[in-house]
């Protein structure tokens, strides 16, 4: 995270210098209202940025499901116990996102499964030995540990009662029941070793197949919305919800031995610490840890169980208090929304001024900003992730939020300027004021109400949309919402949702106050 913050720091600093230069150029009262705004909005961002500046910690990533979270947390603790500073970015996404983040250096290690490596990363249909995998990964500068000790294969699960009633014990038995509704995770639907080849191998007739989130899928299975879903064989939910695993009688699924992938450039003591985990977890133990994580809603505690003797002291020291977590999420959230808003203001107002002059340029600007606004926020994030500069990082979230914040500011700046009566425009020209003076002293102050209301709209939109940043591991108040969604835990969802809503209200209220400071008195009478 520090690495990312350092990069983000640069635009902020240069921005600040620009505004200083402008204040020198334009002198005393000329554009004080705009400067006031920039200073006020920059202060919180500055506070957030200056808070972090340490040596780089080892970054552990994890995928968006319980077991991956727990393994990530175990890795963080084993590193911490070895005296190595480590951070865990929870639930960053699916295989490809984690793999790219590892190769791009945004993370140093993450838990993965051998079958997934062969199918999804090395793109082969053949089962590979761990030695073959190790050789193949070395080309990418990535290493792997030995198996952690358990095989978490894919499986299809059903409600026990239903399966017994229909006499379904194996996947082949599904052929006799085309009416069954199947709900699969999006990843399983798309995987090379997922639904399509499975269906071909077994000749399954079911037409009714939907994509559904993993945790929500268990709820759907429970209430009968679906009858069959994919699962990991160590899922705690299998025992908890009294489900049965259908036997893979044609041996379609490969071995999915859990390992840690790490960058070969990772410091040796950290690699050694990760290798301490080899062969220490069997399926039963992993299932217990997963169940503990889902029961307590606390991955740190569950990971602490792994360390048996040291468990209690470990959780006591590394368990983060709710207040501290909330503060961390909120600051991050403000950082994402704040930086993107400042950028949107700095770019949006000049674009709005250009657009207010109409013509082809004006129409192009307004058209572009309008089109961006129509892209669903989730799709915009997904579009930015594969681009070289962005990837899985806060930068991507800020860029997406910036693009979203642009339209209200551009449009309101343009319409605020266009709404100035012609007689007043002509008066300022007839007086002999220079074009720059006309802009700064007459047009912008007169359009200030409209411009500020555009900025306010952007700020509120950004605070709301920033919750989606958690989807690409950028943190913020979306983090508890997302993990709550994964755990199907409403309390955790609300821990993120309520502060996010309050934040939006506070932002709205602060901007109402700002109106009174920045809109010239003569326009408020």
């Amino acid at each position, binding site marked *: 995270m520090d690495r990312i913050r350092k990069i983000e720091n640069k635009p902020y600093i240069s921005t600040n210098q620009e505004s200083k230069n402008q204040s020198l150029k334009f002198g005393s009262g000329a554009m004080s209202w705009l400067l006031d705004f920039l200073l006020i909005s920059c202060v919180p961002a500055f506070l957030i940025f200056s808070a972090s500046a340490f040596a780089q910690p080892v970054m552990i990533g994890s995928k968006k499901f319980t077991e991956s979270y727990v393994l990530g947390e175990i890795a963080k603790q084993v590193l911490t116990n070895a005296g190595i500073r480590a951070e865990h970015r929870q639930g960053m996404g699916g295989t490809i996102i984690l793999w790219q983040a590892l190769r791009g250096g945004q993370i140093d290690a993450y838990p993965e499964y051998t079958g997934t490596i062969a199918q999804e990363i090395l793109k082969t249909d053949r089962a590979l030995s761990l030695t073959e995998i190790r050789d193949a990964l070395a080309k990418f500068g990535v290493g792997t540990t030995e198996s952690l000790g358990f095989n978490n294969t894919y499986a299809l699960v059903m409600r026990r009662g239903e399966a017994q009633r229909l006499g379904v014990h194996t996947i082949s038995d599904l052929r006799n029941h085309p009416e069954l509704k199947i709900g699969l995770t999006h990843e399983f639907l798309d995987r090379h070793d997922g639904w399509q080849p499975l269906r071909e191998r077994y000749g399954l007739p079911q037409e009714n197949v939907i994509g559904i989130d993993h945790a929500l899928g268990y709820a759907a299975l429970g209430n009968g919305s679906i009858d069959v879903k994919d699962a990991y064989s160590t899922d705690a939910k299998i025992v908890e919800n009294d489900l049965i695993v259908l036997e893979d009688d044609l041996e379609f699924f490969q071995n999915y031995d859990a390992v840690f992938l790490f960058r070969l450039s990772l410091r040796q003591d950290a690699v050694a610490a990760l290798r301490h985990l080899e062969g220490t977890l069997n399926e039963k133990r992993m299932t217990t840890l997963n169940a503990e994580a889902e029961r307590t809603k606390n991955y740190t505690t569950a990971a602490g169980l792994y360390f048996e003797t040291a468990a209690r002291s470990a959780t006591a020291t590394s368990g983060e208090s709710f207040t501290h977590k909330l503060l961390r999420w909120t600051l991050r959230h403000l950082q994402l929304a704040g930086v993107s808003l400042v950028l949107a203001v700095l770019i949006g107002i000049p674009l709005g001024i250009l657009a207010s002059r109409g013509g082809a340029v004006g129409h192009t600007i307004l058209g572009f900003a309008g089109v961006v606004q129509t892209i669903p926020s989730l799709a915009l994030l997904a579009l930015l992730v594969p681009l070289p500069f962005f990837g899985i990082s806060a930068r991507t979230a800020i860029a997406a939020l910036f693009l979203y914040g642009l339209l209200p500011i551009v449009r309101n700046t343009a319409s605020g300027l266009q709404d100035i009566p012609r007689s007043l425009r002509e008066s300022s020209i007839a*007086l*002999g004021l220079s074009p720059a003076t006309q802009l700064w002293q007459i047009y912008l102050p*007169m359009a*200030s109400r409209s411009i500020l209301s555009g900025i306010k709209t952007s700020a509120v939109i950004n605070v709301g949309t920033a919750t989606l940043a958690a989807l690409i591991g950028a943190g913020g108040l979306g983090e508890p919402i997302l993990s709550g969604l994964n755990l199907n835990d409403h309390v955790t969802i609300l821990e993120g949702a309520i502060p996010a809503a309050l934040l939006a209200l506070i932002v709205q209220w602060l901007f109402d106050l700002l109106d009174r400071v920045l809109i010239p008195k003569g*326009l408020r*009478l």
Partner: protein
Amino acid sequence: MSALVELVGVSKRYSDAQALQPTNLSVARGKTTVLIGPSGCGKSTLLRLIIGLVEPDSGTITFDGSEVIAGNIGLLRRRIGYVIQEGGLFPHLTAHANVLLMARHLGKSHSEMRTRLMELCELTRFYGNLLERYPIELSGGQRQRVSLMRALMLSPELLLLDEPLGALDPLVRAALQKDLKEIFMRLRQTVLFVTHDLAEATYFGDEIVLMNEGRIVQQGSIVDLRERPASPFVSEFINAQRGVADLWIASGK
């Protein structure tokens, strides 16, 4: 003495209509020239051409001996004051700031601006304690006085007034007419005044220029226009407003 402003063959067409046919006009120094005519006759366009808000399609405009071109219009505007019907005051600035706007832009000294402001308040009969008010807090008449102060701030050689009293109620209007005339005489100001009201034209105008459909129809004193109309339109226009105009002539002003 030569004219301060000279228009030769100046014409202007907007997309849908010929606003001004090729026109010649001289604005004499130290006098008030009134442009009068029905709405859309081109009188405002003529003013806007002189201050450079629109550019002529043909012809030349000369100000104090130099031709008005894009390169010098910025400097020339500082030598011209301009007042419009709505006042054109900026709502986000106080009366004080409106008046001083251009002087501040030019970096005039505080004491100089203060002295000039006091003079102008006295000249336009504007109460100094109202200077900190915003335009919206002033009456229509007060706003026009501020607008006049703003136009006069840099002691312009030419004052362009585009129906400055058109939006005022009759009592306020009468008082301002009287004050304006006094001011023009005191300053020996060159004024180009646009109105559609014959009584007002008669009251102010050393020279009356009657316009219709983008042309100057007749130019002269009110007596010339009444006694020797150049066309039936002139008689028609004069007769339509005759009652009031006669009053002014009878009172000897």
